């Protein structure tokens, strides 16, 4: 069984237009940059958890690592609040690869 779509149904009725509102562009750019920073922050957290679970860290190393992560977390929250973004805004759907975060 095989059926072709009518040609007129296959063609978009009109070309999609690019919306170049400067405010939207700026927000999109901030969102993208913060998403990448959040990705790195999460990777650091996961790595830190693995290191703690593996053992072998000195107490002062654990304290320093934890303080760094705490500070990063606070700064990300501040930045999100400043730009009016929610945690779930810092994610990108990569289609077949799933979501970035």
């Amino acid at each position: 069984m095989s059926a072709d779509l009518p040609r007129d149904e296959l063609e978009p009725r009109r070309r999609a237009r690019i919306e170049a509102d400067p405010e939207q562009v700026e927000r999109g750019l901030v969102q993208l940059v913060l998403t990448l920073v959040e990705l790195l922050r999460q990777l650091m957290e996961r790595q830190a958890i693995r290191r703690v679970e593996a053992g072998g860290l000195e107490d002062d190393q654990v304290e320093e690592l934890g303080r760094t992560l705490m500070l990063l977390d606070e700064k990300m929250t501040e930045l999100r609040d400043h730009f009016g973004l929610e945690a779930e805004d810092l994610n990108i759907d990569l289609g077949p690869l799933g979501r970035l975060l």
Partner: protein
Amino acid sequence: MITLFAVTWRTDAQALDKDGLAVLADGDLAMIVGPTPSTTSREDALAFGRVVERVASAVDVLPFRYGTTAADTEAARELLRENESSWAARLLQVEGCSELAIRAARRERDEEPAASGAAHLDRLVSRSRQLDIAEEEIGRLLTGRCRVVRRLAGHQELRLSCLVERHHVDLLRVLVEEWAASQTELEVSVTGPWAPYSFVANEEAG
């Protein structure tokens, strides 16, 4: 430009209610396609999902992700020809199954900042272990009732995609929801049945 919705068996496609869709067949497989909207919006994405779920409720499918297109019907047919053997193998893997998605994450609470760096790290480790335990416990419920379980990428959350035979879907949902009711620290959701989006690719996701 045409939108690709799903791949199914050629014989199954014959029985489908087309409703604005077209079926491109080649060999044993068929591809469900339709016109591509001129705009991209949340409504378009939801409409795409509804079409896939409608088809998946009737026949076994390999669903495409929203936004997957081909230049024209010939390009779509070419894609079908190129992937026929691998797609046929995957269709056999998902035969008679739907996808259930299970998500567990710590309940949102206002917490005091940790008193020290070590306490913060300790809190992160503890949350991570909590999710590992949840994965083990849910895993026991899924054993023998799921064909495949995949843990998807997620930070400070547990996301499982389960390929479940359709006659097990309701039972599994009840079991997981009963387990979830006993969890005081975790918020758990079970969604589906969906078309098997997470099982289209062979590789482990996440």
